[in-house]
């Protein structure tokens, strides 16, 4: 998995499914592979391209083992709603984080780009999400990000709010602190996933 050999991984999983191997055991192995991928990214050996390929292999494997996981009552790590805030149509960072979260065992509901606060709230309620991820690239949409956080907080939902995107990755560090009410910030996709994992682990 961590070496991104898609053919070998898919063949091995297919054989495992055919031979009745424990789907939860397979899932743990896949998650272990994703952990190694994340570590190689942190070490500078891998880039976002490798992370995207790893997340894709994970998704294909999940398609194979999901029916068995559901039958055995194995649940996801947590539910995440993710989207780019109103006024911003950029989606690269959001897509990468969504793929990595899926690859780490989260159920991800991507609502797309240019989304008003109400749609985030609606989706969080609909899927009973644990975490919401808000992305924006443009400085001009920081106000929209702030409003989205505020509307989610005012809705009374019990949810962790993660913010990220190009606007926070350069320049003045205080940009992040301009978004009051957010619970955390992911500098890159791996940090975002680690933060999500911490939050769901800490949830009683």
């Amino acid at each position, binding site marked *: 998995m961590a070496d*991104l050999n*898609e053919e070998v991984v898919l063949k091995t999983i297919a054989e495992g499914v055919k031979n009745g191997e424990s789907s939860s055991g397979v899932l743990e192995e896949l998650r272990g592979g994703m952990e190694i991928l994340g570590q190689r990214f942190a070490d*500078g*050996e*891998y*880039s*976002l*391209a*490798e992370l*995207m*390929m790893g997340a*894709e292999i994970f998704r294909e494997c999940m398609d194979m083992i999901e029916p068995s996981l559901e039958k055995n009552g194995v649940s996801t790590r947590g539910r995440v709603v993710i989207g780019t805030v109103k*006024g911003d*149509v*950029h*989606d*690269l960072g959001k*897509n*990468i984080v969504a*793929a990595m979260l899926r690859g780490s065992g989260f159920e991800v509901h991507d609502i797309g*780009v240019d989304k008003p606060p109400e749609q985030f709230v609606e989706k969080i309620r609909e899927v009973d999400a644990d975490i919401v991820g808000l992305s924006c690239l*443009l*400085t*001009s949409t*920081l106000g929209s990000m702030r409003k989205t956080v505020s509307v989610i907080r005012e809705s009374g939902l019990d949810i962790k709010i993660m913010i990220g995107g190009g*606007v926070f*990755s*350069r*320049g*003045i560090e205080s*940009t992040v602190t*301009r978004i009051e009410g957010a619970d955390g910030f992911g500098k*890159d996709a791996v940090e975002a996933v680690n933060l999500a994992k911490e939050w769901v682990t800490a949830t009683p």
Partner: protein
Amino acid sequence: MSETFSPRERLQKAIDCQTPDRVPIALRVEYSAALWAGMSCRDFCCYPHKASDVIEAAFDKIGGWDGVDNTWTQGVRFTHLEPQKPMIPGVDLPDDVPMEFSSEPSMTADDYDVAIKQGYYGLYSELIARRGRKFNRRTEEELFLGFAPIYRYWEEKKGVPVIRGGMTRPPVIAFTLLRTFEEVSKDYFRRPDKVLEAVNATYKECIQMGETQSRLVGCNYVFVPISRAASTFMSERLFHKFFFPTFKEIIEQLVKDGFTPRIHADADWTPFLQYFLELPKRKCILELEPMTDMVKAKKILGGHMCLFGDVPPDILSLGTPTDVESYVKKRIEDVGKDGFILANDDMMPHDASYENVKAIVDAGKKYGWS
């Protein structure tokens, strides 16, 4: 301090990695200039002459700088030359925000074969035709000849060089924009030979495209965007395989043909900086943003390549003139006055305040003297 160099001489001295009378200043002013002047973003996007006029108004009011970007061409250029669906202010978007592109992909995996068989122009013609528009060498020529008078105006009447003629986008960078970064990332592993064949089949035409466009407007600066080959997006293995060999040839050819490549490198290039030592010495500009360690860049590339940057967009939108002045002062202290062009990093946000943009120029003229 009195100026002893013209803007062109000042820029050239920096490209030569030497110390001019003061650090040259180059700004990429875009839609913010329209908003300062009360013009709609739609007009800035659709009418190059009007866009040039508001940039000129800002240029005069601020007191001038040494190199202007051709942002007045941007809306028309993108609408005609890019296959992605454009979203026009006042039409598809509110009238006070810049043009955007739909993120819907234009290129499929099968289109690598189009690139292999028909080349770079052929690929773009095909993809643009699918959007119901026409693109070929003739339409490109008409478009750039239409821009040429504005270039001449800036050069001859205003006495300031326009620092972008055409654009040479290396193939793998183009594929990530046309097909999305996510899909091309998977292609590196699923169909590496096909991607590489398409890269090798198209890169020479990429050079021609940048050179032709630059000749048509009479400007010798060629913009070469490479952000999606940064260490953020490519591991060193992928960088070597799909990007660097042909990129190096592109830059060598542009230099050989008398052009100055503006290598535009957003994202984090710190781990790859040593590769720029393999490019022609004192012939290129390397444009960085704060994700790359500019001090390390200077240490590695000082005397070899002129650095350009990097006042970040969030300071221009959210900071104060004092924040801008501090940033510029520190940047000049860190990087030195040789082989450096002071500039804003990447695109200027449309909500950049006039006072903050003016502060870049004021600070450059205060701290940049040799």
